[in-house]
């Protein structure tokens, strides 16, 4: 009580101690900053500086000229299109599943089971996922054999599992659950009263979706689609395990540059590829954050 009663005297009496306390406070966060500085910011800086450094030194964009080759352009087109298709399809199917969940009992077992399973499956990726689909729909897969026995040949026009359609189908395995997780809160924010209000004003189901729920959910849906895009674009392990002989995708090009013999001759090219990837993801995630902010405005 006495200290609080005399604030002027208190601060005047020990100015130096206040300063020392401040620097001591900063000392408390020093380990964290040293760590992230070494293992997060330094690698990022290495990529940033390396991609703008010419092989013989000096600032240059020559590394990015290496991206402007037909197979590198193809790698980017492939990666971007697989990410876009799997993001849009995953968003639509995930939204449908989320709607099926949200129209059920909010405290029911079904909802709890689906949200928990989504949490697990959204994290599921990588090598095991590739093997799951090899066991399912490769030429010796369970489903392929089953359908063949019943007269259906899913590979009549060639094996598509290792091409863009197959990779898209595999990516949906983690895209749909992720969509359920991120889109469910937006759907939960929709009040049944709004539908009743539409109906009492003479609106049909179409009117409700077109003029009420649609516009409200659009920013959330778009934002979640962007998140799914970034998610697919960053993925590496699944394609790496699926296409063991390499393929024309950006992550696999980085892999070839990092593990191959060419590493010594062009270290800047891998850094330029990494830089371009980071740039794309940062742009997409920034748009996502902006849309998310718009959504939360009416969600609470």
């Amino acid at each position, binding site marked *: 009580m006495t200290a609080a009663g005399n604030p002027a005297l208190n601060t005047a009496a020990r100015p130096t101690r206040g300063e020392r306390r401040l620097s001591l406070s900063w000392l408390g966060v020093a380990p964290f900053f040293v760590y992230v500085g070494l293992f997060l910011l330094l690698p990022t800086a290495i990529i940033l500086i390396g991609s703008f450094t010419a092989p013989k030194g000096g600032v240059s964009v020559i590394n990015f000229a290496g991206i402007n080759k037909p197979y590198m352009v193809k790698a980017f087109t492939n990666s971007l299109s697989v990410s876009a298709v799997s993001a849009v399809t995953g968003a639509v199917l995930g939204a449908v599943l989320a709607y099926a969940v949200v129209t059920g009992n909010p405290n029911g077992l079904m909802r709890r089971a689906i949200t928990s399973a989504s949490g697990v499956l959204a994290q599921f990726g990588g090598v095991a996922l590739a093997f799951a689909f090899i066991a399912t729909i490769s030429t010796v897969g369970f489903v392929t054999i089953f359908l063949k026995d019943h007269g259906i040949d899913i590979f009549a026009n060639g094996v598509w599992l290792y091409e863009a359609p197959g990779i898209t189908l595999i990516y949906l395995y983690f895209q*749909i659950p992720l969509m359920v997780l991120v889109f469910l809160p937006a759907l939960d924010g929709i009040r049944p009263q709004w539908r009743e209000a539409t109906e009492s004003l003479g609106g049909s189901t179409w009117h409700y979706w077109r003029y009420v729920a649609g516009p409200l959910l659009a920013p959330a849906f778009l934002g979640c689609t962007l998140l799914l895009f970034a998610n697919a674009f960053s993925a590496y392990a699944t394609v790496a395990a699926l296409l063991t002989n390499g393929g024309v995708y950006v992550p696999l090009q980085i892999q070839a540059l990092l593990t191959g013999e060419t590493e010594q001759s062009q270290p800047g090219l891998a850094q330029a590829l990494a830089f371009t990837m980071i740039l794309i993801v940062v742009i997409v995630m920034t748009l996502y954050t902006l849309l998310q902010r718009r959504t939360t405005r009416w969600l609470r």
Partner: protein
Amino acid sequence: MNRSRRLKLRIFRTVVLLLMGAYFLVPIAAMLEFSTRGNSVTSPRTLDAWVQIAQTPGLTKGIVTSLQLAVITSIGMLALLLPTMVWVRLRLPQISRVIEFICLLPLTVPAIALVVGLKPLYIWININVTPSVLALAFAYLVLVLPYSYRSLDAGLAAIDLKTLSEAARSLGAGWVTVMWRIVIPNMPSAILNASLLSVALVLGEYTVANLLNFQNLQVEIAYVGLVNAGTSIAVAVGALLLAFVLLMVLTLVGGRLQQHNYIPGQRA
């Protein structure tokens, strides 16, 4: 809601849940089927592929390595992140946004891109510090930052940290005592959550290990897959079911522990 619409909704829900259920369950069933196949189409079911796991030295080594990495990463994450977050909340609230930004940064730097920048760093570590595979934990700690941060942040937001720590301090407790006997016991579910997410992430990690030429579980699975598909699929489904159980336990236990948390004002 009128009757015909309710019926339509019911049919819609059933169809969606059945189709989605099939899409998500069939691959897991197919893995179990594939891993119990015999050598030919007509041969009976066999557990050979599963028995092979124990007899493949690379796999057992990979499992041990990944489990060690999971433990080291979880402990390291808690040791680095928890004191920092508590400290920032109590003494440096002005930089909390900076900490949040840094912790969420790995979400916008794909692992496949980050590894390009980590490569020169690891070449240096390899020569000057240790060539051990466990050095991967340094990189993994960065990868788990966003998930751990969110989980711990939610846990810290649910307790009245300032009052609790000031009460402890005024009774003569030091900072270590505050951390050990006040903060940690008050947020068990958040700590468990952050640790289990880290464990799940480390057990499934392939990108960084593969490109830095380290052999962890996933790298071994991929390698065995080139030679013996059945065995690698058996390990993959085993690891998957383990992660499934782990995370399911997390959601169930997490929900229950949350109810016992100290929430200021709620008991008044």
